[in-house]
């Protein structure tokens, strides 16, 4: 495994020097730029056309009905949206006390997007606005994946295949449409990998690898488990003449920018645990040790197992073929890093730790790349050198293998994916939540305390509802919120919630108590989500007759 494992493209590094040497008059610079753009177009026109077509297809599939499907199945979406809202409108890191659950780079990006595009003011619901940002993130990820595939030496067709697999798998549509930090982290991760595989092997690209990797960390800290594979790719692509600088610059910038997170905690005096304030170390301890583990993949009945089942139920093909392709891919230098990126994540599922809902997101691009990469490896390249003629039988065998996989793949996928994508493009599963928010805004006047989930929280905020709505988790868990509710659940007037599991209700006694003392005012989507009025003590059940209640 040497530097030859990756294709070397000699982009004349002297070009920029010439620019400096021959004067810097504006006209010359413009002329130079024009020549460079023309040269670039001449070299890359095939890729540009292919990628444009693919991006249009992916954009259509991901763009149409992106608010309707999936429905509001996960409250995290609302949380990140609300935090982005807090950043844009309040200049705060979170809408409640920030407690170092995740670094805040992910929703900072969402907030930047919504600020510059006015998305919160435009979109029908706040989550829709954040999903719009995810859509853009997805398009960037697709382009980056194509670039990475090309830099790993895949032929254009297979680079395109990898992007299509990554984008059109129902699992991908499901997760990538939702507002998850993992999507943002994956985009930065792909950017880091693209830089790591840079054919120029410059110190600068190593610095960018480090910077993007750090951005990835800032979006979702768990992505750091993939660091060894990124380093491996950088190392595979190294040039001995500047490897010392490349390596150190990568690690230096990575640690430096990740270290700002520590610096942030230190400045706020929230690094170590202490009474009366949150702390970074406390949060890490909780994430690593105290949080309830989801069990290993091997344990029947564990939540990890049921999560995996859910994924396979949505789409078994991409993940399955990816893992199958990753094993042989380990033996091909240029695919090794990608295979390891996938297998590390698979490996972590066997460990008994906490399994986040969106865990699978970071596996998808690498699964797609492993499949397309193995196809690329198997399909023989046209002979250039006649002296090294390969036996015709072997070539034929490889052609047949690729042909078989391609045909079965096309048949199976069109049978399985088409109906699922059809649902994705048409089903409006978010309607109940959207309607509930609109109904509450239109029918309940200001002056009522409402406890709600995070999806709707931001909508009520944006509608200017006073007093501030309360995110139901915080009613029980945030001392600052509890302090304001002197009479406990009796200070709550309305509750907008979906179905909560008994385990969650066990942790939230005030919410549970409020729910017990409430009647449904209006219910949406067959009881998926309901607006309830809390009946305070001393009030008759027929609340409409008693004005004071």
């Amino acid at each position: 495994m040497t530097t030859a494992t990756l294709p070397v493209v000699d982009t004349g590094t002297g070009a920029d020097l010439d620019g400096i040497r021959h004067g810097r008059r504006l006209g010359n610079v413009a002329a130079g730029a024009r020549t460079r753009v023309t040269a670039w177009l001449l070299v890359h026109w095939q890729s540009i056309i292919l990628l444009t077509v693919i991006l249009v297809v992916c954009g259509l599939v991901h763009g149409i009905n992106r608010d309707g499907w999936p429905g509001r199945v996960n409250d995290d979406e609302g949380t990140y949206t609300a935090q982005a809202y807090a950043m844009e409108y309040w200049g705060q890191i979170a809408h409640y006390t920030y407690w170092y659950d995740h670094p805040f780079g992910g929703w900072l990006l969402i907030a930047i997007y919504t600020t510059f595009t006015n998305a919160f003011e435009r979109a029908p619901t706040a989550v829709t606005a954040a999903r719009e940002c995810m859509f853009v993130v997805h398009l960037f990820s697709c382009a980056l994946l194509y670039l990475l595939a090309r830099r790993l030496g895949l032929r254009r067709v297979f680079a395109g295949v990898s992007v299509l697999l990554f984008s059109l798998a129902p699992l991908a549509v499901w997760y990538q449409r939702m507002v998850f930090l993992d999507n943002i982290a994956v985009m930065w991760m792909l950017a880091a990998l693209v830089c790591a595989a840079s054919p120029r092997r410059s110190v600068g690209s190593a610095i960018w690898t480090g910077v993007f990797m750090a951005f990835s960390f800032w979006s979702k800290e768990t992505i750091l488990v993939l660091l060894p594979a990124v380093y491996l790719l950088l190392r595979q692509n190294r040039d001995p003449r500047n490897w010392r600088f490349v390596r150190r610059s990568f690690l230096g910038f990575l640690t430096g920018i990740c270290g700002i997170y520590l610096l942030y905690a230190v400045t706020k005096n929230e690094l170590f645990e202490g009474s009366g304030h949150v702390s970074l170390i406390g949060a890490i301890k909780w994430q690593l040790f105290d949080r309830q583990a989801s069990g290993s993949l091997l344990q029947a009945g564990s939540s990890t197992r049921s999560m995996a089942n859910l994924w396979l139920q949505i789409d078994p093909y991409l993940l399955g073929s990816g893992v199958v392709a990753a094993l042989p891919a380990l033996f091909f230098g240029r695919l090794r890093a990608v295979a390891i990126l996938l297998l590390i994540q698979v490996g972590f599922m066997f460990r008994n730790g906490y399994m986040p809902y969106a865990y699978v997101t970071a596996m998808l691009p690498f699964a797609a790349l492993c499949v397309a990469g193995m196809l690329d490896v198997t399909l023989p390249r046209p002979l250039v050198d006649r002296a090294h003629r390969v036996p015709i039988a072997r070539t034929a065998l490889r052609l047949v293998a690729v042909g078989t996989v391609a045909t079965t793949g096309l048949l199976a996928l069109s049978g399985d994916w088409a109906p699922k994508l059809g649902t994705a493009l048409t089903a409006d599963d978010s309607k109940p939540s959207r309607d509930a928010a609109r109904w509450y805004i239109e029918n309940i006047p200001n002056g009522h305390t409402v406890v709600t989930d995070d999806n709707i929280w931001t909508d009520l905020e944006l509608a200017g509802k006073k007093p501030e709505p309360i995110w139901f988790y915080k009613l029980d868990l945030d001392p600052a919120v509890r302090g304001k509710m002197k009479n406990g659940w009796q200070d709550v007037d309305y509750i907008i919630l979906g179905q909560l599991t008994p385990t969650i209700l066990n942790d939230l006694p005030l919410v549970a108590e409020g729910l017990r003392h409430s009647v449904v005012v209006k219910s949406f989507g067959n009881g998926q989500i309901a607006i309830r009025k809390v009946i305070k003590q001393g009030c008759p059940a027929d609340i409409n007759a008693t004005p004071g209640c």
Partner: protein
Amino acid sequence: MNPNQALAPPQPFRTRLPGTPRPLRFVASGGISVFVRVMTMVVLVQLLDIGNRTAYEYSVVSTTFLLWGLDRNFTWRRQDGSRVWSAVARLSTEAVGWLVFVGLTRSDVSTPAVGRISMHEVLVDLVSAVVVTFTHLVVCTWLVFGAAQKNSAQSRTARRKAAANTTLARILRGCLVLPMLPLLVVTTHAAYLNRDDVALGMWTAVSLVMLVVAGLTLVRAQYSWQFPERVDHVDLDDRAPARHSFSLIVPAREEPVLGRTLAQVLTGDYPQDLVQLVVVVSDDDVDRETREVAQSFADRYSNVKIVTPGGAIRSKPISLEDARKNCDGDLIGIVDAESLISRGLLSHVNTLAVNHPKTGIFQGGVQLMNFRGEKWRRPASGGPLHALADWFNTGTSWWRARNCMEYYIWFMSRLRYQAVARFIPLGGNTVFVRREVLDQLGGWDVSCLTEDCDLGVRASVAGIETTVFYHPDLTTQEETPESLGKLVVQRTRWMMGFIQVFQKGDWRRLPGLRQRVLAAELLLMPFFQAVAGLALPTSVLLTFLLRGSVGLVIIFWLPLMVMVMMTVTEQAAFREFADAYRLKVGPLDSARLIVSAPVYQLVLSVAAIRAAARLLQGKLEWEKTTHAGAHHVVMLGSSELEGVS
């Protein structure tokens, strides 16, 4: 038709401006100023919903930025005047305008609504704009650029300068400060009331500037390794036949090691008939020993020439100038008396000169070698305190590795970048200049403390191409200063020299804006280094004492992080350095290099502050660093040198 004509770049707008008569120029620039000012004011009030007084201040600031360059490039085109005084004039007239505006708008405090501008205010703004613009024009004409006298054909500039330097003009110029006083009082008072915010704001600005400077320094330090193809740029196998003749100037002052240096050159591989050695030794008693050494060589070798100028003041640039007249070779090089040039150097420079006929200057690498100090011996006399001071000064060697790395990165990487960017401060030796180029530039500036840097700046202005080459086999190996104190003295001189060159202002005539910015950045490096040394303590103090917002604190730390990245890069460079010279370095050396970084930065700060102090006191004489020949001991692979020494 000449094909090159079609490709010639379009002339810049400035040169196409005809010699507009002055009254017309004044009316035009004044009119533009007034118009832009009033329009900005109206737009600001209508758009931003801000109070009128604030809007006035904003409009002044934004107009100043918008019309940046109008004064220099149009109104007073091709006229030299002190920039400081024109800035003072600007501030002073603005202060008057502010007073006019405040005075005239005081009556209508009860302006109906914010965000609406009344006709009255527009008029007041117009009045103050006219006052400001035309007072400024008049003041600048009389006091800064000097009033021109009619019919003075030849020395108009000189007359204007003379007019601007009369006693009356000086007194009036001093009076310019007066109108600023009320504004100054108000500002000081406001700043005092918000002193915490002011401190935080100022340090934020400093941090951002330092972030940019540190970032640029980092990128340029990595220049040679940025792309793998850039690293090995010297081809030793490429050898052209000896064609060019060399004149090597050896300025010597109390240099007992001179003999070794001369012997080294004379036993080099370049044909002796093409090498001329010009040794400059003064004829005073201090240099008698050195002179005798030189004389013994001159007796034996016909190509060694001794120049013994008189004169009470001796300095390196004066010696170089004395020697220049005696140089006959095509290429004039400088060899310091204490340094050993490498064997293949002259043939390589000859090759470069043959291969690059357009290049005027060839700069080779100079490398400090002793990254570890010698063993310290306690001085015979003096108490424990004295011993401790002596140990700290001469016994410690934590800074030596850093000093070596500075040289390595400077000559291997930074200077190569500077050569490509066409602004290069040359090194003090191992530099070879074509004789005609040196004559074209008029030789060295004898009044300059860093004549090497100055020569480079003037060569850059003249558009002379420079080639920088660095190869471990071709570097001139030198030693670090004997002690920390000597290092500070040396640095003080360099920094004073840089500031001197900056003040001389030759760099302003560089052709490209980017070159000028680069020049300003490089020549002001002493200033940045002073701030860099103080950055860490100040940021820590502000973080914990003033409790700024988290965002600000992170901005404070950003330049420090880039400096950390610089030490990371130095680590890589240190290993390269060790490999290149086959030195054995251990993890301890690397660790020391990291730990010493902030302290070294402080030492540089001290030198920078010292340089500023000495400049203010007007002390411009040389503080020379002495040499003991330490590198001759440390250097590996020096068997061929031992024979000569």
